[in-house]
Each structure stands twice: as structure tokens, then as C-alpha cells.
């Protein structure tokens, strides 16, 4: 408890100090230092909570003040705080290296102040034990990240992205305010006394789903992610994509602990929402040319997988099927952890590429592995992890969700469970295949082959802060992939906050740990086999001729970098298959004649929800507002008339109420 509060104080002091430092050079050193200190304190504090049990702390509990600063940490909060702190700490190290080149033109002190405030507010959101305090922390989190998104505010597209984000996040807050009003209808906003009237249970769930789901990125509320995440500086994109969206997941989980026994259709809603979000996210990721935008869409996909796990868990709870419940929720939390690790790794990789070449457009990149060997190798590991390939960490979470779905019908708990399992398995399998397509494309086009532009040719490796933080995350990907049996036990207290504890669950966890142990052994065997084969090959090849030559390519004589398969051509078959959903626009100028002089092809893929649903709605709203505008004539008399009319209306309404009573 003390450590956690100390961490918040360190972060906020840091924010103050760096804000004062402003443009001075040491701000870029102080920021990361404060952040890392805060993270270490938080991680130790959260892990101690696992040992010592939950705690509560309030500055002015039960006072008359409206805002009661009230923290509480149970295992669920501790889990989310640990993930948040680890990633923000590593992101701060990366950020120290990343922001260096902006030192002359930007106020880095303020950037670090917002970063530290964002870290502190995320931790506060994940431990707040009072509705109003939660909303305040939530709003600080949204606003500080908004200022970080518009770091490069001189670019119009960045401002536009910031605008979309600001609207989306307040759309979410509006729903949350209503939800907390219902939760606090008993008279107190403290979570300790939060009681949901049974009649309003589902209303609260829907409000939480829309409010928190917008932050998390559930379709169709995901539209802000692909705008805001690419616009922010890369370490901020990583924090937003890897941990801030998880605050939304945390919110949903927390609300589920208040609503009591969940209903079956909630689980179904989450499973279907997860399937749509997951498949939609990865399809749009596949169609992107901007590397960071691709990663943002892939976050949408992974949020879909998390929702699938949670939905499976809720269906399990609602049908009193503890095995499914525990495996679903464990898979959900495991994927929260794993996604945080590999997604920040990938964003760091994208940031280094941007740093080295000045471009995020994959069509301009290529061949970077030779020029940035470390970044390239780390990115490849992250890409394999996000495709859920063993022996890396992405596999563990998806394995638990798969296992939960299989258990759903091997144990015969009725049609609901089986149907849910079938939907989950087919969706995950399809997402897995699409993700593999998406990330072989991202890794292959950016880092392999020949450079497609002179910028890519002149790329250089990033500084030690950036590669070092990526190295830590790469090691984490591998370690978490092999430490499955350990982590599943570690997250159990957090899982039990939702599912409760029973003997059946202990058995499941014991068995699950056993399977994960075998997966770890298989993973280790795999690594040893690859190493052994490599040694064998080196042994055999030593003393034989090992030559270098041009790519053979069926004897093609003059291959050129421009002849390579591009990112768009690589994904074209899949995108075309799903054209009905993706609605990619293609403009082709075909070469004509025997000696064609020019030919061009342009493709672009806009977000379907944004262009077809949300933008038209805003245009409509603007139209209606314009009509209302006509009421504003500029004559005082007319305004007085409005006031009189309003007063009369109120008067009649009061009379009417008196009359009917």
C-alpha cells in the first residue's frame, strides 16, 4: 500500500518537475527516471498485494466532500497495475531515446509531464474505489493521452486524429457517467457499497460495454484507435495500445464484480462482439500501408480475442460450467498481459523504423534487417508472438481460450456452451490465419528484401535506449512463452475475483498448469532442436564452399527493388476475398498500347465504420444544428420571447402535474 502510494507520489512529483524543466535538456533524462522509479515501486507494491491480500486507503472517506480519494487494490487491480507499470516503465526508457531528436523543437518537459500524469492516472483508474474518483482519474487519463497524441500538433493529420480521439473518449465518458449514477443510486458512490438494482443489471452492463468498450476498441467503437495510435509518438502509441485500452477491459471486469451473477446473453454478446472485432480488426490491419496504423488495427483484433475469452468465461459462469469459466477468464487475462508485451515491442520497432527512415509507409521500406539488425530481429520475434506461434507468449493465452472452448463440448454442458465453443474455435482459427498473413507481410515487406526507397537504403540502427528496451520486451516474450505454468498460477487470484473459488477450479488450474508445462517442454525442445540443427549445418558446411550470389529467381537477369512484391500486392488476394467487408478502393490506370508510357495503381482502405456510419451521423447532426441555428436572429426581442415561452411551458407543466396528482 505504502509502495503504491509512493509510486503515485513519485510519478506526480516527476510530472511537476519535468513540467517546470520545460525545454531544458535534462527534462528528457528526468522523465524516464521518474517513470522507471514509479514503475518499480508499483510492481513491487502490486506483487506484495498478491502476498498480503487486498487493501483500502481513503484520504477523506465518508466526509462531506463530493470527491473522495479512495484507493483499493485487490488481485484484479494488482494484476492490471503490474502490467501497466511494467509497460510504461519500459516505454519511458524507449521514449528517452526516441524523443532525443525532438529536443530542439519541442517542449519535452511538458511531454514527459503528460506521460507521467498518464501513467499515474492509469494506475488510479485501476485502483479507484469510488465512482466519482474513478471518473476523474478516467478523464485525466483521456486528456493527458490526448495531449500526448497531438505532440506533433503542427501536422494537420495529427490534429485531426486528436480530434477524433477527443470526441470518442467523451462519447465513452457520457455512458460511464450514466452508469455510475445508477451504481451510486443507493446514495454512495463508493464501490464498497455499489449495488446494482436487479432490474437495472442489464442496463448497467450495456452502458459499461459501450463506455468501456469504446476505450478498449470494440467494433464499432474502435474508430479512434487507427487514428490516434499512429499519430502519437511511438512510445506513447505503445502505452496507449498496450495498456491504456486495457483500462477499458479492466472497467468491464470491475463492473462484472458488482452486477452479481452474469446473464447468459451478456456472454453471447461479448463472444459475438469479440468475433466481429477480431476478424474486422485483422482484416483492416491486412489492408493498411501505414505500419503504425496496421499495428493499431491489430490491437483491435487482439481486443477481440480478449473479448472472446471473457465472453466464453461469462457463458461458462452463466451456465454454471466452472471449467469453461476459469479457462475463458484466464485466457482473457493472459492475453491482456501477453498482448501488452508484444504490442509495445512492435510499436517500438515501428518507432525505430520511423526514426531511421522518416517513413511509416511500408511501400517505401524494405531491406531494413541488414541495416537495423537488432530492431529487425526483435520485430520478427514480436510478429511471431502476435501470431500466437509457440514457443512465444502469444500462444499461451489463445491456448487457454481454445482449451476452454474444447472443454465446452467435451464435457457436454448443453447446447449453449457447445455453440459458444464452436464459434470461438472457428473465429480464433480464422483470426490466427489472417494474423499470420498480416504479420508476415509487415515483417517481410519492411525488414526483408531490397530497400524500396533511398531513405530505407540509408537507414541506421537506433540508439541503445531504444534497442535496449526492445531487447527487454523480446526476452519477456520468450520468458512468458516458456513460463506458462507459472503465470497461470500467478493470475489465478485475479481470475477468482470474477469467478469465485471452488474445488473444481483448483483442479482445472492444476490440469491447465500441467498442459502448459508440456507446452513449455515442447517449446524448449523446439529451441534446442533448431540450435542443434544449426550446429549440424555449420559443422557440415565448414570446409565446403559457401558462396554469395544474386537472387536466382528462375534465372531472371536483372532483378530490381521495384519488382519485389509490395505490401499491397501481398495482401491483395485476401483483401479481395473479403472485399464486401473491407471495401478497399482501387484505382487502376492500365498501361495501354504496345509501348506503354505510364501505368499506375492506387489502393486505399478507409475505416468502413468511420466513413459509412459515424461520419454520416456527424454530418446529420451538423445539419440539424444548422437548422437550429436559424432560431438565432440577433434581436433581443426574440430572445425574450424564447425566455417567456420557456417559462410558460414550465408553468403549464407544473400545473399539469399538480392537476394529475
Amino acid at each position, binding site marked *: 500500500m505504502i509502495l503504491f502510494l509512493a509510486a503515485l507520489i513519485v510519478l506526480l512529483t516527476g510530472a511537476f518537475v519535468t513540467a517546470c524543466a520545460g525545454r531544458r535538456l535534462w527534462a528528457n533524462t528526468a522523465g524516464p527516471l521518474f517513470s522507471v522509479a514509479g514503475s518499480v515501486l508499483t510492481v513491487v507494491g502490486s506483487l506484495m498485494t498478491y502476498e498480503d491480500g487486498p487493501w483500502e486507503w481513503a484520504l477523506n472517506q465518508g466526509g462531506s466532500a463530493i470527491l473522495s480519494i479512495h484507493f483499493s487494490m485487490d488481485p484484479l487491480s494488482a494484476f492490471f497495475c503490474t502490467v501497466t507499470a511494467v509497460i510504461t516503465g519500459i516505454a519511458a526508457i524507449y521514449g528517452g531515446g526516441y524523443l532525443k531528436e525532438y529536443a530542439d523543437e519541442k517542449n519535452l518537459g511538458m511531454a514527459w509531464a503528460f506521460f507521467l500524469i498518464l501513467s499515474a492516472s492509469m494506475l488510479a483508474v485501476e485502483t479507484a474505489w469510488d465512482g466519482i474518483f474513478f471518473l476523474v482519474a478516467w478523464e485525466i487519463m483521456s486528456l493527458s493521452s490526448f495531449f500526448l497524441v497531438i505532440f506533433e500538433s503542427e501536422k494537420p493529420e495529427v490534429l485531426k486524429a486528436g480530434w477524433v480521439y477527443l470526441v470518442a473518449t467523451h462519447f465513452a465518458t457520457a455512458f460511464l457517467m450514466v452508469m455510475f449514477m445508477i451504481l451510486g443510486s443507493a446514495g454512495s458512490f463508493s464501490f464498497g457499497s455499489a449495488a446494482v438494482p436487479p432490474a437495472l443489471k442489464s442496463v448497467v452492463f450495456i452502458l459499461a460495454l459501450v463506455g468501456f468498450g469504446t476505450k478498449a476498441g470494440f467494433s464499432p467503437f474502435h474508430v479512434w484507435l487507427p487514428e490516434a495510435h499512429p499519430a502519437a509518438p511511438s512510445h506513447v502509441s505503445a502505452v496507449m495500445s498496450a495498456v491504456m485500452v486495457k483500462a477499458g477491459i479492466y472497467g468491464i471486469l470491475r463492473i462484472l464484480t458488482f452486477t452479481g451473477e452474469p446473464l447468459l446473453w451478456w456472454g453471447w454478446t461479448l463472444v459475438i462482439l469479440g468475433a466481429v472485432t477480431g476478424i474486422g480488426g485483422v482484416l483492416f490491419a491486412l489492408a493498411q500501408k501505414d505500419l503504425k496504423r496496421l499495428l493499431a488495427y491489430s490491437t483491435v483484433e487482439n481486443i477481440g480475442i480478449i473479448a472472446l475469452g471473457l465472453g466464453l468465461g461469462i457463458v461458462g459462469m452463466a451456465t454454471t460450467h466452472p471449467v469453461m469459466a476459469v479457462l475463458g477468464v484466464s485466457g482473457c487475462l493472459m492475453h491482456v498481459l501477453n498482448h501488452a508485451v508484444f504490442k509495445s515491442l512492435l510499436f517500438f520497432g515501428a518507432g525505430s523504423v520511423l526514426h531511421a527512415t522518416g517513413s511509416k509507409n511500408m511501400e517505401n521500406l524494405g531491406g531494413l534487417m*541488414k541495416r537495423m539488425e537488432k530492431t529487425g530481429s526483435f520485430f520478427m520475434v514480436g510478429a511471431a508472438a502476435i501470431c500466437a506461434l509457440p514457443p512465444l507468449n502469444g500462444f499461451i493465452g489463445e491456448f487457454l481460450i481454445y482449451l476452454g472452448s474444447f472443454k465446452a463440448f467435451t464435457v457436454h454442458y448443453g447446447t449453449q456452451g457447445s455453440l459458444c465453443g*464452436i464459434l470461438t474455435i472457428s473465429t480464433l482459427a480464422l483470426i490466427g490465419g489472417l494474423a499470420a498473413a498480416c504479420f508476415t507481410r509487415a515483417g517481410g515487406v519492411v525488414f526483408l528484401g*531490397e530497400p524500396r526507397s533511398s531513405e530505407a537504403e540509408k537507414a541506421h540502427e537506433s540508439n541503445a535506449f531504444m534497442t535496449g528496451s526492445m531487447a527487454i520486451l523480446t526476452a519477456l516474450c520468450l520468458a512468458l512463452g516458456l513460463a506458462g505454468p507459472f503465470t497461470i498460477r500467478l493470475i489465478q487470484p485475479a481470475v477468482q475475483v470474477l469467478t469465485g473459488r471452488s474445488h473444481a477450479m483448483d483442479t482445472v488450474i492444476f490440469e491447465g498448469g500441467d498442459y502448459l508445462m508440456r507446452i513449455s517442454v515442447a517449446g524448449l525442445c523446439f529451441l534446442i*532442436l*533448431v540450435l542443434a540443427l544449426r550446429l549440424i549445418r555449420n559443422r557440415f558446411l565448414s570446409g565446403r564452399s559457401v558462396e554469395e550470389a*544474386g537472387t*536466382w529467381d528462375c534465372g531472371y537477369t536483372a*532483378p530490381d527493388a521495384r519488382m*519485389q512484391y509490395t505490401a499491397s500486392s501481398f495482401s491483395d*488476394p485476401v483483401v479481395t476475398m473479403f472485399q464486401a467487408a473491407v471495401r478497399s478502393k482501387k484505382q487502376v490506370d492500365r498501361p495501354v498500347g504496345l509501348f506503354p508510357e505510364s501505368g499506375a495503381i492506387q489502393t486505399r482502405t478507409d475505416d468502413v465504420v468511420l466513413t459509412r456510419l459515424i461520419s454520416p451521423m456527424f454530418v446529420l447532426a451538423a445539419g440539424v444544428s444548422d437548422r437550429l441555428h436559424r432560431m438565432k436572429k440577433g434581436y433581443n426581442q426574440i430572445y425574450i420571447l424564447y425566455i417567456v415561452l420557456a417559462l410558460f411551458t414550465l408553468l403549464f407543466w407544473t400545473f399539469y402535474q399538480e392537476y394529475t396528482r
Partner: protein
Amino acid sequence: MNHPPYIHVAVSLAAAPFLFGVINKVKAGFAGRKGPPLFQMYYDIVKLMRKGAVYSRTTTEMFRLSPLVSVAVGILAVMTVPLGQTESLISFHGDIFLLAYLFGMARFTTVLAAMDTGSAFEGMGASREVQFSMLAEPAFLVGLAALSLLTGESSVAGILSALRNGTGTATGHVVIPICVASLFIVLLAENSRIPVDDPNTHLELTMIHEVMVLDHGGMDLGFIHYGSALKLWVFASIIARILVPVKMSSPMLDAALATASLLAVTVAVGVVESTMARLRMLRVPQLLTGATILSLVALIIAMR
């Protein structure tokens, strides 16, 4: 009394390349040719293993890594499937996913190695490979899910031995053939056989897997051949075991039956290859989606 599992793993590792010989003999028989010797793949691999290496200047470590991963994955995969009535070396609930995703790992590195050469041809093959495998994956997992639902087991070995122990119900008689059909299509697609891919050519119109490994040579190519042999062995032995779940009275008879059924599946691959033309590239997704639908139908019937 069964043999210890590592004996059959050793046998599988040694015998896998033989399957290619069988397929080629069948094809030669249909064409009225004598065909290459049954052990041709062994000769090829040994010949390749004695060669030096030539690497493209464009390539990186990724290119050198992918053949090793293919073989490592193949070896691990062989350990998860039983041969005949033996136990498998790695077996636990959900090892199906480990199997599927290990093959995913092999594909991931193969595709990246293809893109590493910077060649348009290999990029094209890579692009097609990810498209088709994306469609084959649901068919495979859902098909196994149907069998899992039928038997109440969730490991490869568990499902297969439960089939032996008599799920000869009316449902089983319907579900198993549908699953076999679907898994057979997956086998053809995953092992780049006709009608999805043509292992004997790398012309632009047909190139998928063969063109991805166009630039590999020497030991690396040997590793790749061996890796694909192991993969074919794994898929064929799963299907063989589903088709012939019978347990014989003695281990020797069991082993003989297992070998015979495995060879029967391999011959079936050869027959399909000899009697069918390769499908047009645009038709392949339909075939694979068809396989997924078959799997789903099997699953729905099994749920009944």
C-alpha cells in the same frame, strides 16, 4: 503390450521420405512409366546434404533459419501423433493446437524466407501460401473439434484411441467420413499437392510452395524436403488412424495394419494427383472453404 513410444518416433523419422516415393510410383503407374525408385527422396536428401551452399546477397539470417524450423517442427509434430496403436510421445489435452500452431511457425518462417529473397516470384508464392493456409486452418481445427465432440477427448492421441474403443454409433458413422473428407482436403492443401498446388512445377501460374523455396539449395533444400516429408507423414497418419481404428490381437499385426493404412492414404494422394488437374487459382479458396463447411457440418451432426 505396446512398444515404447520412442521406437515409433524413430521409425517415423526414418520412414517419412519413403511416402514421396510411394506417391511418385503411383503417379508413374498411372502414366505408364516406370518412375523414380521408391527411395529416390533419400538419394536426393543425401545428395543435397553433401553439397556446399550459395546464398543470395539480399538474404538475411531469416532465410537460413527457415529450413531448420521446418525440420524442428516436423520432428516435434511426429511426436504428437501415434502410429497404429502405439502411444504418442507428447500427449495432453489440447495438443491439437500445439500441433496446428507449430505448423504455423514453420509456415511463418518459410513465408518470411521467401520474402527475404526480394524476388517477385517468391513474394507471389508467399502471398498465396498465407491466403490458402488461412482457409485451411479453420477446416483442420474445426474438423478435429468435431471428432473431439464425438469422442469427448481433446488430445490427438486421446481422440484417436477413443475412436478405437468403439464410438461405432450411428452418429459416428456419419461424422467420421465427413471429417476424413475435410481433413484429406487439408492434407492436400497443407502438403502442397494437386489439386491445390503442384509439387512438380514452379511456373508462375501454379506456384505456391515450390516457388517459395526456389532460392534454397544444398543442405537447406535437403532440410526443407525432409521437413515436408515429416509433415506429410503426420497428416497421413492422423487420417489413416481415423479410417482404421481397429486394434489387432498382437503388436506385430497392429504395426502391419498401421503401415498398410498409412500406405493406403499415401496411395490415395497419388491417385488424386494422377486423376485430377490442378484447380484454377481462384477455385482453391472455394475448395478450402468447402472443407471448412464440411468440418462444420460434421461438428453440427456430432452435437446432435
